[in-house]
């Protein structure tokens, strides 16, 4: 990016911001808000990724709005958007995009519709996902951006039908969006084909499914309330969000194999807290027999969680997840020599501790992922303080450790980072 262009963009952002500030809350029936955020993340030493000193350095402006067009009053229509400008000092470029841009309306008393770019979330997990197959950005998550950036938007049509017995929630995603996965630039990772940790020399290419009618993704949820508890059933038809298939190992070409997921969850009050269980059967459609070593085997994910407030300002959440690979013997047989084998059962425990101080203006939090089977751990400590109602600062760290190079968090060892963010909201 040339400097002049960069300055112009910066100027445009400042003007937009000034405008938003002057315009106050509402103009011409449009509610306006947003924030400006500066973030910097120091890397605590990795030799392999692209830049050694830092992996986050950016200025972000978000402008959001809500418009209720009079013409759509009869169907409670509303247009919502969240536009962002990101001046990314790490990539050395500036980008503009919409995180949300959608129209919601109620065509019938029993039905809601939301069309356009939107963030989609469901399931009972806390930073763990079983039946939520919507796209995620793990690079943002591991490098210290706000938790909300773990979720990537989808261009989708979402339809709800509410009945006396159950609520139905159908999502149609015409064009595939994969997860933003670790690609060796900001973070190094374990390359299964090369058998070692890879950084900026990552030569893999990921082939995405074509935008055809046949490749449309569907996600369905049926929800029923049982007294104080919520029983939900899920179905997903689409693709793995990570490139779990190898197309051509010599050319390091990967692809996103077809995936169906069938699941259920139950969540409700338990022993003074909230308990939940969730299960999902991952049906790897292109390798149902588990014989193809290049494609992920089918699996089952089991998740149990419990959160409880110990005092008004201190809460604890624990989760236990087991991921069982099906047809494990065939996976072992199809494994090429020298490749480290994954376990048949992967166990993962998480613990969230949250403590509030100073009339809830200071928050200290620790989120821990620990896998006894992979023998790796990922710590996410953070401390945030609301200096004023508008200005908040957050400092935190991402710390990875593991006994092996090939495990989920073990491969990130050496990518430890410290970050600092300041956000001014309006």
């Amino acid at each position, binding site marked *: 990016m040339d400097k002049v262009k960069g300055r112009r963009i910066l100027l445009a952002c400042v003007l937009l911001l000034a405008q938003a500030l002057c315009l106050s809350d509402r103009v011409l029936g449009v509610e306006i808000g947003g924030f400006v955020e500066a973030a910097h993340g120091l890397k605590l030493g990795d030799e392999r990724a692209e830049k050694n000193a830092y992996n986050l350095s950016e200025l972000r402006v978000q402008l959001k709005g809500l418009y209720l067009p009079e013409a759509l009053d009869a169907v*409670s229509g509303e247009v919502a958007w969240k536009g962002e400008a990101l001046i990314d000092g790490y990539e050395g470029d500036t980008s503009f995009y919409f995180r949300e841009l959608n129209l919601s309306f109620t065509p019938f008393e029993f039905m809601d519709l939301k069309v356009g770019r*939107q963030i989609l979330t469901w399931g009972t997990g806390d930073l763990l996902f079983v039946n939520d197959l919507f796209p995620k950005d793990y690079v943002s998550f591991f490098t210290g951006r706000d938790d909300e950036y773990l979720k990537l938007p989808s261009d989708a049509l979402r339809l709800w039908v509410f009945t006396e017995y159950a609520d139905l929630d159908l999502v149609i995603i015409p064009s595939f969006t994969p997860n933003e996965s670790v690609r060796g630039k900001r973070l190094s990772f374990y390359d299964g084909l090369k058998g070692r940790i890879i950084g900026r020399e990552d030569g893999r290419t990921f082939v995405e499914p074509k935008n055809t009618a046949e490749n449309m993704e569907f996600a369905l949820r049926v929800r029923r309330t049982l007294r104080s508890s919520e029983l939900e059933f899920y179905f997903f038809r689409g693709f793995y969000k990570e490139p779990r298939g190898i197309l051509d190992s010599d050319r390091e070409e990967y692809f996103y194999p077809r995936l169906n997921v069938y699941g259920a969850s139950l969540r409700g009050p338990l022993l003074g807290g909230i308990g939940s269980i969730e299960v999902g059967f991952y049906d790897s459609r292109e390798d149902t027999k588990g014989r193809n070593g290049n494609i992920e085997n089918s699996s089952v994910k089991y998740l149990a969680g419990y*959160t409880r407030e110990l005092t008004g300002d201190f809460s604890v959440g624990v989760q236990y997840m087991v991921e069982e690979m099906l047809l494990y013997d065939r996976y072992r047989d199809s494994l090429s020599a020298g490749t480290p084998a994954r376990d048949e059962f992967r166990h993962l425990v998480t613990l969230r501790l949250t403590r509030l101080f100073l009339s809830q203006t200071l928050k200290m939090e620790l989120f821990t992922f620990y896998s006894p089977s992979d023998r790796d751990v990922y710590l996410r400590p953070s401390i945030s303080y609301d200096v004023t109602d*508008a200005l908040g600062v957050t400092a935190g760290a991402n710390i990875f450790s593991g006994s092996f190079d090939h495990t989920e968090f073990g491969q990130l060892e050496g990518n430890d980072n410290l970050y600092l963010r300041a956000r001014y909201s309006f």
Partner: protein
Amino acid sequence: MKKRSVLYGLVLIVCGVLVPLQALALSADEIVNKANLAYYYAGSDGAAKVRMTITDTRGRKRLRELTMLRYDVEDGGRQKFYVYFHRPADVEGMVYMVWKNPERDDDRWLYIPAIDLIKRVSQRDKRSSFAGSNFTYEDVSGRLPGDDVHELIGEDTLDGRETYVLKNIPRDKDLVEFSFYKTWIDKENFLPLKGEYYDKAGRLARIITVEKIENVQDIPTVVKARAKAVEGGETVIEFMDVRYNVGLKERIFSERYLRRPPRRWIR
């Protein structure tokens, strides 16, 4: 025949005298129940915009603005609350929903719009601060009359209003931060006008005073109150645009409307 008439007359006179006497001699429990209904169950539903100005011990001010919708499933019993946050800006659009169940734990949900997340919230400690203010969750949504033993300890005049003074002692001391609290309840409209909370050592720790009452649709309504911590810090709560019996539908208090806030009520 005559005798009987006289007898009837006597009975009527006796009843006529006794009934108002009985009304005057309300028991502590009756006063508390009437106060609970007057303050937390006015009308069959209600909508209000709430502004809280929180001043901390160092004099710094913070502002919270929210819209509160209330639906009474039964008078004095189950209730549903829908709380939409307008300010501060970083929580705008967040919704907190409560189904108050007198006979078991309340059900609580929190909707975080930035990630389209609906969280179930456990809340054991109803005495904790509501949104960082000097009011507790129970101050906002009501404390069950049965949770305390009530004692009428006297009468008092506050700003020219005749009040009953009650001492309330918790049945379960472990669940609360106070050893007891005193309330001043208006004899005429049964609104609580003042509350004093005493800590475990018996020292005065927090004072709530009602500063303004208005008649809304002929219902006496607290529109301004102040909670002051003795050791410093206070919160002023103001209820604006209060409306009763607006015809809220019970279905608004559901997961559907966490994602689709009823804009008709939320402005």
